[in-house]
Each structure stands twice: as C-alpha cells, then as structure tokens.
C-alpha cells in the first residue's frame, strides 16, 4: 500500500521502485511531453527568438512580484472590488474550506462542478463538501478519472498520468456501467456525455486560477478541454480558490508568462482556451455567473516568503516540467511523495504545507542532478532550495543520529591530513551501504597521497 503522507516517502519508494509497469507508463508520458516541449524551444530559436531570454524575463517578473507581494495583492483586491468580484483571505486549509462550505450553504447548493485545481487538492476541499452532503464532480478528464478511482492526482498537470488505458477502461465500465473499451476516443466520449449532464445541472462552479492580474483585477484560467470554461460560465456562482502567489502585476507581464507556461507544461504554444475573467455578469443576457468569489489562500506561503533561501519556490507557475524531467519522478511517479505537490518543486513546498519533520525525506529524494532547475520556465533554483531544506533538517536535528555521528567523525578525519590518511581503513565500513544492489569498489592499495609522498608519481612521470 502506498501511504498518502510524505512521512512514508522512503517506504513508498521502496515499494514503487519495483513497479515496472508504472515506470513504463510514466516514462512514456513524460518523455513524450518533454520531446514536444524541446521541439517548440528549438523552433522558438529557429524563428530568431530567444527562449533563454524569455525565461530570464519571467524570472524577473516573478521575483519582482513575490518580493512585493503585499503591494500587488492590495492592487489586485482594489481592482477585483471595482469589477464586482468578492475577495476573501484564508489563512489555512480549514479556513478556506469553511468559507466555501458557508457560501455553498447560503446558495442552497446541491451540485458543484469543479475544474482542475491543485489548491483545492491541497486543502482537501472535496472531502469536506461531500461530508456536507453536496455532490461534487471533477470535470477535467484526468481529474474525473482520479475521482472515479478514489485516488489523488499523481502529477500537477496530468493527474491520471499513472493510469493505463486499460485501467481507465475497467474503471469506466465498473463505475459508469458502460461496456468495456480501452479506446481513448470512446472513453473520452463517455466522459463528455456524463459530464455534460452535470454541467447543465450544476449550481456552483469551483475553479483554481493560473494568474491573477493586479492592474486589471482579472482571473486567468488556462485549459485544453473546455471544462473550466463550462464550470465558470454555466453555474450561477463561480468560486475561485487559489494561492496568494498567483498574482501578476500587469497584463503585459501575464503575456510573457502565457508564452512560457503551455510550452513547458504540455509542449503546446497555446492551450485551447485562455479565459480572462474580469467580472460577474451584469445582466442576464451575459449568460455567465452573477457572482464571483475569489478565495486567496496562504496556507504556509507566507512562511516560504519569509525564508529567503526557498522564497523562489513561490515563483512556480505550476507547469509540471520539473516533474517530467526528474529521473526520480519518472521512476516512482507522484503518489510516492505522499503529497499534493510531487516531484522537485513539491519537495520544497511540502515541508511548508505540512511540517518539515514529516516531510524532510523528500528533499533527500533527489540525486541533485539539476535537470529541474535547468528546465524551469521561471528559473527557480530548485537544486539550491533542496540543498537548503536538507541543511534546515540537519539544523533541526531531524536527520538520523548515526548519520550525524558519521559526519562528526568524517569531519575530524578531513580536518587533518594525518588523521585522514590514518582513517583510510575505516572507509571499509561504507561497503554495506551499497552491497545489496551494487559492488562497492575496493580501496586502492595506496592512496594518491601515499604515492605522492613516496615519490612514486613524480619519479616515474617526470
């Protein structure tokens, strides 16, 4: 059993490392997305444009925004208000959930349609709404699959990446009572039919947001399926739940991020739909929700903001590229992390959304190859943040006692060349660390130090 908690990361990894099927599906999906992405980047250069410069620009935009977050949030709120969009601030998950529940109750809600939102996963909103007797339907195909299966997303942009078409075929026939098929087109058609009905009956639509434009008071939602458009136009009430870091100062700057996000996320120049939602319907002829409420969630984000060393994690535009490119993610998929946000960026965010104590292993579950920092469209130094979290865990004494002792000994050995040379024989103790899986090399008969001292090297080679 894979445990839904980062505290079980190591156990989960051990188990999943054996799952060759899963590995095959995930590697295939991630490689495909990566190759589409890199084709577009190559094309971008071939058109005389500079992808790297675009990334730098995006990094600067995000840096400026996060460094002055409060200012832009105030600006955003003013413009939301002008546009007739209600704003609420939620400090943590439970506050956000109770806001939503209260609103739903006020509106006598029976059916909620949701378009993909990681923030609602983060606060476990669905469980709360279902407990309150409300029917909740996820409408993004991937999310719908996951909901039917009673699972959590394994990837932030492709929630059902870990499922094969056979898995999904079986799931649909079991849960929807349709004849078994593993044809993606037929399966999609079933989903369309079932979900269209729900859309037309829904009382409330809940969505996340990709960007919140401060200067215009706009909610920007990016998607391919059209389910977000349906969820945010058909019901009478639209609730947006999103993190405070999603704010972007200007329209112009949003355009820059809009160029980077789909290329990095799915290898598309643009997604099928980008919605810029400015205000609720003013008259019935608008045929859109008459009310829009935006809930801005903190839930640990301000804590990240306070820590200079990891602050960049808030630059994240949730493209998922760092997951696709991560050899660890490719091998173990998202559930192993036991966190809503898996992969490299997840390993930085999770300690602040939960506790460092239970999620400290995540930061160690990286070979520090740096592929994530290299691909990140907003140039977050993920590598550096992971290293810092490790040092923070050490500072808090969350690392194993034996490890701390070993490093004490190691330091003593390294401090002094005589102890160092004497301590050579102790290295043999390293052997068992690997021996279940790999052959540890034998120590050289004489170290370079010894050979040098004995004159072996310069005598022979001069």
């Amino acid at each position, binding site marked *: 059993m894979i445990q839904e908690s980062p505290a079980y990361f190591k156990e989960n990894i051990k188990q999943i490392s054996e799952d060759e099927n899963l590995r095959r599906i995930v590697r295939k999906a991630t490689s495909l997305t990566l190759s589409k992405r890199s084709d577009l980047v190559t094309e971008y250069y071939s058109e005389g444009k500079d992808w790297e410069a675009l990334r730098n620009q995006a990094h600067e935009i995000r840096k400026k925004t996060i460094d002055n977050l409060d200012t832009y949030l105030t600006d955003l709120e003013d413009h939301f208000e002008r546009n007739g969009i209600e704003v609420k601030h939620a400090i943590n998950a439970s506050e956000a959930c109770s806001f939503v529940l209260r609103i739903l109750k006020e509106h006598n809600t029976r059916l909620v349609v949701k378009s993909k939102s990681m923030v609602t996963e983060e606060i476990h909103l669905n469980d709360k709404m279902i407990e309150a007797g409300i029917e909740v339907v996820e409408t993004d195909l991937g999310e719908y699959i996951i909901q039917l299966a009673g699972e959590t997303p394994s990837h932030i942009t492709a929630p059902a990446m870990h499922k094969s078409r056979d898995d999904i075929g079986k799931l649909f026939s079991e849960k929807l009572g349709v004849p078994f098929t593993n044809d993606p087109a037929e399966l999609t058609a079933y989903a369309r039919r079932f979900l269209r009905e729900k859309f037309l009956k829904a009382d409330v639509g809940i969505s996340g947001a990709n960007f919140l434009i401060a200067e215009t008071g706009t909610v920007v939602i990016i998607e391919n399926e059209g389910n977000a458009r349906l969820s945010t136009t058909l019901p009478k009430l639209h609730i947006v739940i999103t993190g405070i870091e999603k704010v972007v100062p200007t329209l112009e700057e949003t355009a820059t991020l809009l160029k980077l996000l789909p290329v990095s996320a799915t290898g598309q120049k643009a997604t099928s739909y980008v919605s810029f939602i400015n205000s609720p319907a003013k008259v*019935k002829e608008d045929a859109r929700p008459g009310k829009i409420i935006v809930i801005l969630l903190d839930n640990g984000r301000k804590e990240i903001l306070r820590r200079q060393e990891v602050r960049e994690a808030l630059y994240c535009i949730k493209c998922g590229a760092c997951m696709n490119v991560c050899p660890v993610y490719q091998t173990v998929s998202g559930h192993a992390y036991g966190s809503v946000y898996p992969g490299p960026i997840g390993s930085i965010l999770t300690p602040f959304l939960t506790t460092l104590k239970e999620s400290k292993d995540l930061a160690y579950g990286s070979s520090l190859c740096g592929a994530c920092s290299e691909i990140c469209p907003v140039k977050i130094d993920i590598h550096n943040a992971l290293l810092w979290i490790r040092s923070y865990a050490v500072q808090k004494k969350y690392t194993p006692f034996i490890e701390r002792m070993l490093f004490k000994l190691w330091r003593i050995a390294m401090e002094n060349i005589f102890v160092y040379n004497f301590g050579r024989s102790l290295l043999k103790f390293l052997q068992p660390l690997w021996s279940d899986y790999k052959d540890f090399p034998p120590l050289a008969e004489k170290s370079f130090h010894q050979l040098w001292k004995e004159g072996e090297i310069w005598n022979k080679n001069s």
Partner: protein
Amino acid sequence: MEQELLNKFATELIRVGGEFSLASSKIEILKIVNKILSQKGCNTAVLSSHPFFDSLKEMGKGESGINIFTIEQILSLAGESDYTNLLREKLSQTDAGINYAEYLIAETGSAVVVNTQSEPSYLSLLPEISIIVSKSNRVVKDMSEALNRLRTENLFDSSGCITFITGPSRTADIEKVLITGVHGPKKLYVIVINF
C-alpha cells in the same frame, strides 16, 4: 506584413487542428459557412449578434436548408421566461455556433473572442462545431499585442470575460493520446475576410 501574419496564423491554426478559409466578401463567408454546415451534416446553427454579422443575418437563409438562429432571436423567443436556460438548451441542441473574433493571433493561431450579450461564451463552447469569423486586418503578432490592443480599444476592461481560442477542445489525459472535442467543440473553423 499583414499577409505574412495571416499566413503564419493559418499555419499555426492548422497545426492545432483548426481549419482555415479565406473569404473575399461577406457573401462568401456565408457560402463557406453553408458549405461547412452541409458537409458536416448540420441542421442547425446559431449566429452571433455581433454587429459584424448585421448585414448577413437575413442573407443566404434556406440556401442549404439549414436553420440559422441568431442570439437576438433566442433572446426574443425567451420573452419573460428564463433566457439563460433557453440559451443553454438551444446551444446544446444546435450543431454549430458562429462567432466573431476581435483579433487573430499569428504566433499561436488563436482567435480572440470577447464574450458579450450578443455572443455569450456558450456560443463557442456548447455546439460540437465552432466557426469563428474575423478580418484580415485584425491579425496581430502575439498574445501581448492582442492584450495591448484589447486595452487600447477599450475592449478588455469593458468585457466580463475574454477567451483566447486555439484549436478545438482537446485532451491527452489518457496515455497522452490526443482526442478532440472532450467538452467543447470537436471542430474549429476560422474564416477570414479580406479587408
């Protein structure tokens, strides 16, 4: 320059699975629309009430036996009853929706649709076929130019919701296999009139 942008737009649109046609006059737009509708075996279509279509509303009707309603007609049909419901119902049953795009974006092959009372969001979303019409002098370079123009022409702040549409509705959530028409239109046609 305009030609270059238009070519680029067409290339990108086709790349994302959209279809492109050029019309030399408003009458020709109708012809193309009719051709698409009859090819696809459509019986009904709903036309936006954007002023661009004013002169077209009455023309060409009956030519192919296709019923074309306008948003205005649906609105007057609703009378005192629930307009939104009627609109949903009509658009769910109709085969095609015809929209006007304020801009076309060359770099990405996108159409910029400003959702208003005369062309609500459902129009480009509920029917299985989406037909979008625009003018050749409305092609802009990229998204940032589109957003800038929307602002300077006072379309951004005045509209409740603007949508950039790039190709048909799509998903790749099942083993990354691309399927179109998951929730929105299966087919997207863009007709550009030379202006």
